[in-house]
């Protein structure tokens, strides 16, 4: 298993890493059991354009790099176009991922979608084609408490 130079470059110098103070939407996906958690913060303007985006990720180099790349691919886009950013697009932009790491790119797509879902809920709007997040982390997840 070897990472592309691009993956390592994004791992070493992640873009848009951090938090947003007053985000329009936040999405957290993955779980600590699998070793990957991604959180995406979106700042969306009145016209529906993604003005700013930040991420935080607990995970391997592939998880960090896919988060970083996903933020680059959605920043400046309208939410309807951001929704079309697929895991394949993230993967391709990183010059590919080792087969065992492809699920990380899926997580990046899901994190964007989860943040958009949160935004839609806050705004009381429906974003066409957006499914509710599958792997969102619930604050009161009891499985996490038993250790």
């Amino acid at each position, binding site marked *: *298993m070897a990472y592309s130079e691009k993956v390592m470059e994004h791992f070493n110098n992640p873009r848009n890493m951090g938090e947003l103070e007053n985000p329009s939407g936040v999405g957290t996906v993955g779980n*600590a059991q*699998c070793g990957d958690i991604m959180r995406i913060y979106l700042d969306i303007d009145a016209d529906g354009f993604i003005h700013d985006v930040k991420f935080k990720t*607990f995970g391997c180099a592939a*998880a960090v790099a896919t988060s970083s790349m996903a933020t680059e691919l959605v920043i400046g886009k309208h939410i309807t176009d951001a929704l079309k950013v697929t895991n394949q697009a993230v993967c391709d932009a990183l010059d590919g991922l080792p087969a065992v790491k492809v699920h990380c790119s899926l997580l990046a797509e899901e994190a964007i979608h989860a943040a958009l879902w949160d935004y839609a809920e806050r705004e009381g709007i429906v974003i066409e084609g957006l499914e509710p997040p599958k792997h969102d982390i619930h604050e009161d997840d009891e499985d996490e408490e038993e250790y």
Partner: protein
Amino acid sequence: MQKQIYLDNAATTAVLPEVLDAMLPYFTEQFGNPSSLYSIGSTAKDAITDARERLAAHINANATEIYFTGSGSEADNWALKATMEAYSDKGRHLVTSAIEHHAILHTAEWLEKNGYEVTYLPVDADGLVSPDDLRAAIRPDTTLVSVMMANNEIGTIQPIFELAAIAHEHGALFHTDAVQVLGHIAIDVALMGIDMLSAAAHKLHGPKGVGFLYIRKGIKTRSFIHGGGQENKRRAGTENVAGIIGMAAALDIAMANLDARAAADLALRDDLIARVLAEVPYSRLNGHRSLRLPNNANFSFEFVEGESLLLALDQLGIIASTGSACASGSLDPSHVLLAIGLPHEIAHGSLRLTVGDETTTDDIDYTIESIKQVLERLRSMSPLYEDFLQGKKPISAVK
């Protein structure tokens, strides 16, 4: 060029120049087949005989009890499969531990699929197998107990004397995987009551691709590889002559200054452990504090994932190892870290550092500073750390 600090001596070690020198003639001038009768054949055969005697002496065994293999994993496979089969009239039950190397665990799983029963002994929070658990698990049809001498990930050393004695009290044989121990701590198979022992050369500055299985005289075993008459007809195939010579040379050197090396490793390792635990917040030591291999340190750093840690340290020239799932391509983190009771997210953030003869105090200083630097970066990136700082949800109570 950036400096390189190799702290993965439990993974493998460099062949020593003296070892290489001892090996080289057997690739070229002395290339004869040990099974051939002419002179270069008998030169090779004599060299193997001599190596076998020296290796045997280092663990207080007889030369006829040493069977060369291609690896420690092969020795483990052989010990389990051939012994369980040879004694299947008596019983079909194997007892082993939950923290064995995969060479044992996957072989045990294979045995389970082939009509044998296996009990996996749990370990405590330090990674120790309890003799009482062994007593409770052992049955009249138990033919073999296999517990590793020391764990490759967390370094915990098992109470081998006691476990072997319990196996014998109940009429079972005792095998131990000593791959991490040979050349690092003295082994006396007679004193310890060991019936079979697996070892490999490359963990003690010998070559890769060669190991041995010690099988005490009188124990029934089946041939593991069928063919020629090598290894008392138990393991056919032309011998890895240079490898065997190299293994004996490496063990000679390791045993000649065993105490001094162990003391040096221990001093560096203890300094590393003490300082990491004191200086790095939200860190813990995995494995037993004192009953552990002298070169082994294994930490968990909360809120970060091990593969990221490994790669970030690699960029700074530090070579280490992790029990994170992400580094292995599977979904679960190390079975050893889960067996000692770590929750998944803590197990994912593990880092194994194993010092060696080349390690200096400067290396330890640099490593600790690098760990701090890398952790600061990775934690600033971690949503788990963010939640923790905001008091949202304690990640774990492990400390």
